[in-house]
C-alpha cells in the first residue's frame, strides 16, 4: 500500500517534470534554451517516472531493467545535447540574449 502511494507520487512528479519539459520546448526562444528545457524532461522527468515503475516492479529483474534504461538515458542524453549544441554553434547560430533595457516578453 505504502509502496503504491510512493509509486503514484513518483510517477505524478515525473509526469509533471515531463510536461514542463514539453512546455519549455515550445516556449523557449532559441535552440540552446530549448535544450535546457528538454534536459528537465530527460533527467528529472524520466528519473521519477522510472522510479515510480520501480516501486511497482518490486525487487525483480524488471526493476533492474528500469535502472538500466535510466542509466542509458543518463549516459546518452548529455552526449546528444552536447553534440547538438556544439553543431549549432559551429553552424553559426548565435544564442538568443536578452537585450539591455529590453522589457521581458
Amino acid at each position, binding site marked *: 500500500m505504502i509502496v503504491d502511494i510512493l509509486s503514484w507520487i513518483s510517477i505524478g512528479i515525473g509526469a509533471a517534470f515531463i510536461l514542463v519539459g514539453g512546455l519549455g520546448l515550445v516556449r523557449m526562444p532559441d535552440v540552446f534554451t530549448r535544450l535546457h528545457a528538454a534536459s528537465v524532461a530527460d533527467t528529472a522527468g524520466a528519473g521519477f517516472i522510472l522510479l515510480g515503475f520501480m516501486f511497482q516492479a518490486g525487487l525483480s529483474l524488471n526493476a533492474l531493467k528500469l535502472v538500466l534504461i535510466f542509466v542509458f538515458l543518463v549516459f546518452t542524453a548529455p552526449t546528444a545535447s552536447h553534440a547538438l549544441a556544439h*553543431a549549432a554553434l559551429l553552424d553559426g547560430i548565435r544564442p538568443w540574449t536578452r537585450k539591455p533595457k529590453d522589457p521581458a516578453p
Partner: protein
Amino acid sequence: MMALAAVAALVATVFLALIRAYLGPTVYDRVVAVNAIGTMTVLLIAAVGFLMGRPEFLDIALVYALINFIGTIAVLRYIKRRRARDAEEAESAEGAEGAP
C-alpha cells in the same frame, strides 16, 4: 490509474514537441524535438508495458533508448558534414566569381 496519467503526460509532451518540430525554425530545433520524442517513446513503452501488465516491454524500451541516441548522433553528423560541404561550395563559387 497513475500509469495512465503518465501516458497522458507523455503523449501531451510528444504533441508539444511535434509543435516545435513544425515551427522549427532551424534544423537543430527539430533535432531537439526528435530527440525529446525519442525519450518520450522510451518512457511511453515502459508505461504502456506496466499499464497492460506486460513488463517484457522493458526490453524494447531498453533498445529504443540506444537507437534514439545513435539516430540523433548520425543525423547530427550528417547535417554537420553537409553544412561543411555547402560552405566549401559557396567558397569556391565566390572564388570563381572574384577571379575575373
